[in-house]
């Protein structure tokens, strides 16, 4: 058999895994690998910072459902991806991050550009590897893609020492993966499913609480079926948005800290909560001992460790959301006629909705961020991929854009990483080139990775960046306003650049909107332009995200306005 070097094996292996794009930034230790990439069909997207390479790979994975891949150099290159890897870990995103490493004989010597990235990323990866021997390389790559994409997905870091890339061996790609310590449970226990069936039949006020796991497992259709067969209203987590159609009559919004009144009240009054692919995060539950006080709790999740971690669960079902819901729906259909009428419950929810709808006031004449998002929704008919950063703009996007399809809302939910949105949009646009991709961001978040405008322009990606510019770190400012007597500190961003000129200097198009009357035309113009566009929306600085459940309070204790 022909012998290949590590770099060639790397490329053969990722081609076997169907990798189309790699996001990354080169460096000394991987020069051999980059030389081999030169001749390969893999498309390399050169970012301007390694953190962005990781977020772009993550955005690609979120938008496509495939494994995102990034490739960076050793030392600072590797430590720069840490935030990106942690972001993917918290949101269970399938990603393989390859890092260069100093030659094996120098590991531990504090060599130039050496960092123990396997040690650094141990608790923020699903698994990680240091490849010591070229003979292990293809097996490690095979395993890393398998681990990243199966079970509860997550990032895997593979550290590649320089000498392993040039060492020779025979290339053989393993056809099967066998890891004795890793066997995710896919099918739910039939006995447990029957118990849920009984609960659904007896419940007067059931509620589906659907998270990112629905999207990750491709269970949107099954979730919709379940909701419709049993007439169960649905609340989404931030990560779950798009997993259930946002305009459906059974959809009542996002629950938690910034969920609409009706979603939190429904959670508070439900007698049965069926959690699907969600993990009872503190931003969702509020005060845990007051969460859903009247409800029996069913939890469907592929990761046993999420069950009864924060909230005691009555009926756990460990399995893939799609498989479990399929089974459940099949059995539900058999008893469909015996299921109770939910008219009263739905009316109750409607009542909450009509007394306290999501709303905002336009009386002061300033441009309102919610209005901008409503317009973005109208112009894209809810079909765009929205990537956000973190803060007020993220919550307004979650509240006012109605997501119709899975994989259309990409946001750093768990880690809450500002600077995620722009690089994630780059990955998303490459994954779904036919879709409109909009990065809704804030002036604070945008500046955390704005150098990636160069990546977007260089690759001619017509991404639209809508900056909801309030000249501050708005969410922290909101907390200071509500809980710290308006003593604003370290939240003022009056040193901001001129975002229009900034965009132009990168070769992108810059636009500015200061009045409501300009919003429609500007959005229309931006969407019709095959270019990277930055729109600087100068919004009301004091606009807040409401409702708000103060951290650690019960969900029913919302500040309405």
């Amino acid at each position, binding site marked *: 058999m022909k012998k290949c070097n590590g770099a060639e094996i790397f490329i053969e292996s990722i081609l076997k895994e169907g990798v189309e794009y790699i996001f990354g930034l080169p460096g000394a230790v991987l020069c051999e690998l980059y030389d081999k990439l030169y001749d390969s069909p893999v498309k390399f997207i050169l970012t301007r910072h390694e953190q962005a390479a990781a977020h772009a790979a993550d955005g690609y994975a979120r938008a496509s459902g495939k494994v995102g891949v990034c490739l960076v150099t050793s030392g600072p290159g590797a430590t720069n991806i840490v935030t990106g890897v942690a972001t993917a870990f918290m949101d269970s995103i399938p990603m393989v991050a390859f890092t260069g490493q100093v030659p094996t004989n120098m590991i531990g010597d504090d060599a130039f550009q050496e960092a123990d990235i*396997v*040690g650094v990323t*141990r*608790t923020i990866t*699903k*698994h990680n590897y*240091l490849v010591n021997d070229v003979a292990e390389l293809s097996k490690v790559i095979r395993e890393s893609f398998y*681990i990243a994409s199966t079970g509860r997905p997550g990032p895997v870091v593979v550290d590649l020492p320089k000498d392993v890339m040039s060492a020779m061996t025979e290339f053989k790609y393993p056809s099967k993966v066998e*890891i*004795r*310590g*890793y066997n995710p449970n896919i099918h739910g226990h039939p006995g447990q499913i029957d118990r849920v069936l009984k609960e659904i039949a007896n419940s007067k006020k059931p509620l589906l609480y659907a998270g990112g796991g629905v999207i990750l497992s491709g269970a949107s259709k099954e979730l919709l079926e379940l909701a419709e067969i049993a007439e169960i209203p649905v609340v989404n987590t931030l990560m779950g948005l798009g997993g259930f159609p946002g305009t459906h009559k059974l959809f009542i919004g996002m629950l938690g800290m910034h969920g609409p009144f009706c979603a939190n009240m429904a959670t508070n009054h439900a007698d049965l909560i069926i959690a699907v692919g969600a993990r009872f995060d503190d931003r969702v539950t509020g005060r845990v001992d007051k969460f859903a006080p009247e409800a029996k709790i069913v939890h469907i999740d592929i*990761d*046993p*460790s999420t*069950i*009864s*971690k924060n909230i005691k669960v009555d009926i756990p079902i460990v399995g893939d959301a799609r498989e479990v819901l399929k089974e459940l729906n099949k059995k539900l259909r058999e008893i469909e006629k015996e299921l109770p009428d939910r008219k009263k419950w739905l009316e109750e929810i409607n009542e909450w909705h009509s007394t306290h709808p999501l709303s905002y006031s336009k009386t002061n004449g300033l441009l309102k961020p919610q209005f901008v998002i409503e317009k973005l929704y109208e112009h894209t008919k809810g079909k765009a991929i929205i990537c956000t950063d973190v803060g007020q703009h993220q919550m307004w996007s979650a509240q006012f854009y109605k997501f119709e399809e899975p994989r259309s809302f990409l946001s750093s939910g768990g880690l809450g990483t500002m600077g995620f949105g722009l690089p994630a949009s780059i990955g998303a646009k490459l994954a779904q080139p036919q879709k409109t991709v909009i990065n809704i961001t804030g002036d604070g978040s945008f500046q955390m990775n704005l150098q990636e405008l160069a990546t977007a322009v260089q690759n001619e990606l017509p991404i639209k960046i809508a900056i909801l510019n309030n000249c501050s770190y708005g969410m922290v400012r909101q907390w200071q306003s509500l809980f710290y007597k308006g003593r604003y500190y370290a939240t003022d961003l009056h040193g901001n650049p001129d975002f229009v000129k900034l965009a132009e200097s990168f070769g992108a198009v810059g636009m500015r909107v200061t009045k409501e009357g300009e919003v429609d035309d500007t959005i229309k113009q931006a969407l019709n332009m095959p270019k990277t566009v930055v729109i600087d929306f100068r919004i009301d600085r004091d606009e807040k995200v409401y409702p708000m459940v103060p951290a650690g309070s019960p969900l029913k204790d919302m500040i309405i306005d």
Partner: protein
Amino acid sequence: MKHTISVMVENKFGVLARVSGLFSSRGFNIESLSVGETTDSTVSRMTIVTRGDDQIIEQVIKQLRRLIDVIKVTDLTEDNFVEREMVLIKVNSDSKSKSEVLEIVNVFRGKIIDLSPRSYIIEVTGDSEKIDAILGLLKPIGIKEIARTGSVAMSRGVKKG
């Protein structure tokens, strides 16, 4: 409550760091941890003694099972099991306390494995409570140094199924 957990892991570089790192990053405590190879040289057995309420122990076990290099996790505390720990104790050896030390060593079925003009080294094996007890008795005499192995444990008899 105290739990003794047996963890079968891949006998690979870095696995100990994964397991101990899990405890520190999730805020679980480790009272003792011991590792050794099993009859299958690719598998190591870790015995971890930890403390926590039922919910914490459930999380400890689930989080351990999440690790790719962890093959099997058993909470021995749920079962009938034996537990042993060994300790080496260096004590002062002046003529006054000599007989007292020898008596204590005898009662605990320990051994004196080193004898020098100024000190003895005593070896004792037993469960953690027995070790704590002998240490308590020797303390007034003057312990210079101790080295404990941490517990190793095994369930009794043959497991059903």
